């Protein structure tokens, strides 16, 4: 196991001095349901990308290429915001 810093080694006031360090703290494990993205149905309107509160929709060259399950919380907003006629995201039970 990684040795954590002792109290004398930490920056004062609980500060985090490294920018963007939240990326190192994986929170996908909180999820109980999981979005599944269907590339064939997707029209790449990017609604899901705009609404995802956790920046977990992975977009490359203007196209949704997947979901970052290391951070996705399974809130289902992406599935809800996907146009009903398209319904490219379905929520399924998380199994680990």
């Amino acid at each position: 196991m990684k040795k954590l810093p002792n109290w004398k080694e930490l920056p004062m006031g609980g500060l985090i001095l490294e920018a963007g360090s939240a990326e190192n703290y994986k929170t996908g494990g909180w999820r109980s349901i999981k979005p599944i993205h269907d590339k064939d149905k997707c029209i790449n309107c990017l609604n899901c990308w705009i609404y995802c509160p956790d920046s977990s929709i992975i977009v490359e060259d203007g196209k949704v290429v997947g979901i970052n399950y290391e951070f996705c919380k399974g809130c289902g907003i992406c599935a809800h915001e996907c146009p009903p006629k398209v319904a490219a995201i379905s929520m399924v039970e998380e199994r680990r």
Partner: protein
Amino acid sequence: MSKIVAKTGNESMAEAMRQINPDVVAAYPITPSTEIVQIFSSYVADGLVDTEFLAVESEHSAMSACIGSAATGARTMTCTASQGLALMWEMLYIATGLRLPIVIAGVNRALSAPINIHCDHSDTMGIRDSGWIQIYSENAQEGYDNLIQAVKIAEECCLPAIVTTDGFIISHGMESMKLLEDKEVQDFIGDYKAPYTLINPQKPITVGALDFTDYYFEHRRSTAEAVLQAKDKIIKVSQEYSHLSQRKYELFEEYRLDDAQMAIVVLGSTAGTAKVVIDELRSKGIKAGLLKIRVYRPFPAEELAIVLSKIPAVAILDRADSLSTMGGPVFIDIKSALYNLEKRSKLINYIYGLGGRDTTLHHIREVYQDLQNILDTGKIAQSIKYLGVRE
């Protein structure tokens, strides 16, 4: 040359704030500290200070705004009393945890219920575990002097600090006092160089992040260390200020204690009343003295123990009740400060002056009479008493 002026406690604190010229003041008025905010806001309106003044909608917002301001690295102050301080309570702990040197010009007032606007120390005693540096003043002069020192103390310790006067007794009482020159104050406090700032795009940081079981304990431990280290810094700044002002400031004041057989321990304005009685008793050959606590947090436990251990009978006067059945907060602290001594003094506690009830020379004489009885009989009849309440 220092100027001699006539000022109330509130005016003296507003004057200190003008001379400090903080970057930001966010405040909400509350009796009896309203005048501090009011006078200071007129300084802002008249362009006498460079301060960004935020008139917020509550004390909770005032302290929240102060925290945001201080996190950017701005020298930040506010003023409050009583329910206002109570409403800030949640944010006070955050100011400490983020190590932000916010300074409050406080005025002591009772807490509801019943509603009461007069002096006691229930409000500030309620924040005694918050990690704020707490400094009590005997008069308007000390309120002024302590407030100037608090800015430097807070910044050197990276901890927030509150300086208080007693509501109405000091805050609205006019007295003659000495002011420093504006330049002397500015030179004394110096420029504030914050250890961190939230608004440097070259060096982005996170302030107020979530801690779980893996880090919270370590962060609290380091804050406890900052409070432990604060005492020496307070002593140093107080010495520098004593030198500048020619007025002596220490963790506590000892008044005729050297050969004292009995002593009163008290905070704030009642110290003045006690001094009059002590002089009276001394003229009759009675060895009475006073210990006035100035810096209540961090608590000067070791220093107090050294002094008090030599005095056979000590009465601790609390202008707040802890409602713990253990007496007032100062009594509880002093009892535990003396516990490990080989030879312990006899201690008694008086809860006095709640809700602004006058504490007169007569009351103080009564306390010394009780102490005399303890010295004569070696026995404590009643260890916690209410002084001046109708029985």
